[in-house]
């Protein structure tokens, strides 16, 4: 889970990092009198402020999502302007207004896992700020033993080797950052810039933090932090509701709307992605991505199919998966056909599936196809998955040409 800047700073504050005086404004509450009063008070207290859209991603400043402002009126109109903009595919739902800090020096620090050494790694630079990406290769790297952690002495000699001026302050700050990284189960913790001011106070100027999803159940501070649903489409929200229907299997949790016209119902993580790669390589355009696995109920698959096929102007539907170990292929394909019987698509449907009760499932589909004249092509384990994908792309193209 990627934390928004203000949540990241709240977390860092628990580990001793100062954050600038700030006011969080949400799009929903922008017009409330209380918000306007608070903004007025904040801008009177701080003549110069930074206005920072709370979106996930890099280069916010370069793209105008972080700007400087003066006075309540100008700040308010900047807020209104930012709330109406899109950052990549995210709408801006909250904005952090911060006092502007007088910067004496900017450092860069990041903690992450090094996949080669299989240990945590500290990245550090005395040249922090917005241009860090252009000299990422120059970052000093310090591998950390996951058993022994960081010691004061080792950090001091690391910084000494880099000829860093402020080692006396930086050592305890880096120790705190590592404590936060491990205790809060971060996958990535980046503070850029880490700001030194002339009056001796140090601030986390920004915070990019990714929490390990696998550790969320043991992180009490995150229990109430809901994943931002701000950038989900209505179909994506509906599919997630299907997944939450019961505890049997996964169906729709990763539903994603895409701009193409071939509807996708895939099974199995590695298999799904391998088939999506093949679809794209062959020039097919997916209308969505979704995956079901772990033996979901017939009802769940029916509902997920209804959502998947609800998009207008589809040119095909691909039901694809490997050889299931225990997912009941009859039950899940019956759920698929339940929805097909209601929607009655005229576009081609290509199914490739194998596993428990596959013969029964195929017989059931064949008899429904005979009765209702659906355009269905059935493949079992004799056909490689990605070959079935190529058939889908070709049939969808033919269907589109025939319209």
């Amino acid at each position, binding site marked *: 889970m990627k934390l928004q800047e203000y949540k990241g700073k709240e977390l860092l504050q628990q580990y001793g990092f100062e954050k600038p005086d700030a006011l969080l404004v949400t799009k929903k509450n922008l017009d409330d009198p209380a918000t306007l009063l608070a903004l007025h008070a904040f801008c009177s207290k701080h003549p110069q402020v930074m206005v920072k859209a709370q979106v996930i991603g890099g280069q916010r400043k370069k793209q105008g999502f972080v700007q400087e402002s003066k006075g309540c009126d100008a700040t308010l109109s900047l807020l209104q302007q930012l709330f109406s903009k899109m950052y990549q595919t995210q709408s801006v739902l909250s904005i952090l207004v911060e006092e502007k800090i007088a910067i004496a020096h900017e450092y860069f620090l990041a903690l992450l*896992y090094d996949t*080669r050494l299989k240990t945590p790694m500290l990245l550090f630079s005395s040249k922090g700020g917005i241009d860090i990406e252009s000299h990422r290769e120059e970052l000093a790297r310090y591998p950390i*033993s996951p058993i022994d952690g960081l010691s004061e002495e080792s950090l001091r000699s690391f910084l000494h080797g880099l000829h860093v001026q402020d080692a006396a302050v930086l050592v305890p700050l880096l120790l705190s950052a590592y404590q936060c990284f*491990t205790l809060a189960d971060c996958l990535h913790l980046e503070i850029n810039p880490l700001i030194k001011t002339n009056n001796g106070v140090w601030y986390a100027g920004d915070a990019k933090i990714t929490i390990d999803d696998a*550790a969320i159940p043991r992180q009490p501070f995150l229990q109430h932090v809901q994943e931002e649903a701000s950038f989900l489409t209505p179909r994506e929200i509906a599919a997630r509701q299907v997944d939450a229907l019961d505890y049997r299997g996964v169906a729709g949790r990763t539903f994603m709307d895409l701009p193409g016209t071939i509807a996708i119902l895939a099974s199995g993580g590695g298999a799904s992605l391998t088939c999506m790669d*093949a679809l794209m390589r062959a020039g097919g355009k997916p209308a969505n991505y979704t995956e079901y696995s772990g033996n979901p109920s017939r009802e769940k698959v029916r509902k997920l199919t209804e959502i998947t096929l609800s998009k207008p102007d589809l040119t095909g539907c691909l039901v694809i998966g490997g050889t299931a170990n225990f997912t009941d292929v009859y039950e899940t394909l019956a759920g698929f056909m339940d929805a097909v019987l209601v929607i009655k698509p005229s576009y081609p449907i290509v199914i490739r599936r194998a596993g428990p009760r596959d013969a029964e499932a195929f017989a059931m589909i064949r008899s429904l196809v005979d009765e209702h004249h659906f355009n269905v092509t059935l493949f079992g384990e004799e056909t490689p998955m990605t070959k079935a994908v*190529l058939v889908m792309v070709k049939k969808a193209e033919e269907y589109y040409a025939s319209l």
Partner: protein
Amino acid sequence: MLPSKTTHVLVQGITGKEGSKATQQMLASGTLVTCGVTPGKGGKTIEGLPVFNTVAEAKVFDPLLTASVLYVPPLLAYQAAREALVAGIPWLVVFTENIPVRDTAKLIAYAAQHHSHIIGPSSVGLMHVGSCKFGSLGGGNDDRMYSKGHVGIMSKSGGMCAETALLLTKQGIGQSMVIGLGGDVLMGSTFTDLLPFFQQDQATKVLVIFGEVGGTAEEELAEAITSKRFTKPVVAFISGLFVESLPRNFPLGHAGAFIEGGRGKAEDKKKILREAGVLVAEYHHEIPDLVKKVMPHGI
């Protein structure tokens, strides 16, 4: 040596749904499972095997134990694996998914101290085709997908171990050893870590790799091949084109499959592998044809 048919193996989490099913399947495939561990369930029997509360007790019962397969819940996996390492078990196959990376990092460091090996987390297991298996490869129908032969397989995806073997089997090409490495951010064993076992294995003539966007395992493999630490022909498929094309940061696929600062892209991995002499399949179903190209004559 990798665990094999004569290896005494323990199942941690043997009384759970996955653990008991896997135990049954391992026994059926000829694996020497001798006992299991589930804290608080000591004294029970599963599939005729004794269950103990701790690995230490299991080790007293069977001093010849040299492998453990772990089917424990993710937030308890660290303690369970630690216990096996302290008890001196040299091979851990960790089936459990969703183990926090912080725990995995510590386990990998402890394993190095104990000179033990970890395969996984999120490993579907290790199979000597036609002989024995450690984990859940093949479910209960090993023969439906796997056939004995000369192709070794290592895969970051468990499901794709089966599909890759199936492709080969349908073309009359058998397999020697198949290992699911798991696609976590930190892998107990990378392709490179296990290469020496495929190099030594007489039955393996060709190695097939299923790799993925993210991390550095494929790059390390290319380095090992270039520096002649592995000299048998290698065929690879790398997935990730779709994941990389997504405009948003959706958590899709394996935990390790993400791009950081433009590094670890599938196309870059393919290029590096090709430069090392690996045959790279653009479509997964091309793997058997590439294997036929490099398989030594007369095999």
